[in-house]
């Protein structure tokens, strides 16, 4: 019973990433989309919240915001929309932290 957690807001704007990352269980996956992708940038303070979480991030949203993959925190997995669909398949349910 693993869960896919979606976060679509900047961690510098609101608390969704904080809530999601602190409630996730081992085996769960966190997917950062839209403005949520800012949370995956290694040099940003918020990236500390990702520690211990399995994290994927939407490539198209990264590119739109000018974030190259070398800027990402270690272990962050970049996916496209097809990869998003696969994550929904692989996990039993989806929690959108809106």
């Amino acid at each position, binding site marked *: 019973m693993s869960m896919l957690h979606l976060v*679509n807001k900047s961690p510098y704007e609101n608390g969704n990433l904080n809530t999601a990352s602190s409630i996730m269980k081992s085996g769960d996956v966190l997917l950062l*989309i839209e403005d949520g992708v800012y949370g995956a940038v290694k040099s940003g303070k918020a990236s500390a919240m990702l520690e211990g979480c399995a994290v994927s991030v939407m490539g198209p949203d990264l590119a739109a915001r000018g974030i190259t993959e070398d800027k990402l925190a270690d272990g962050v997995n970049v996916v496209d*929309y097809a990869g998003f*669909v696969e994550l929904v398949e692989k996990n039993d349910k989806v929690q959108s932290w809106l």
Partner: protein
Amino acid sequence: MKLTIQVNEGPYQHQSADSAYFFAKAALEKGHEIYRIFFYHDGVNNGTRLTTPPQDDRNVVARWSELAQEHDIDMVLCVAAAQRRGIVDDGEAERNGKDATNMAPGFRISGLGQLIEGGVQSDRLVVFGD
């Protein structure tokens, strides 16, 4: 995999409708079934045919209408949310005494039960919002 997708925000103001669209398209390309797309809250504003986006911008509403037609997808606007926001089809116009309609092709207006039923009938519910 059978999917129900919920969209909580209108077009342009938030990226939610864009993300939902690209996700739906990718799911269809991978052979999954979309049981229903349910538009709730301001999401009902995705269903107005009166938008005229700039020439160099995407047309969010037309994109939904085409997707519905190509893949025969059930796209439902919540009736209570649509009444609050002013999205109207022929039936609603008659019931509520409106002098015009604005619903786009490919959508239909129905009750919240359609969302619950989507949750019952689908393998996954994926929500896009603010």
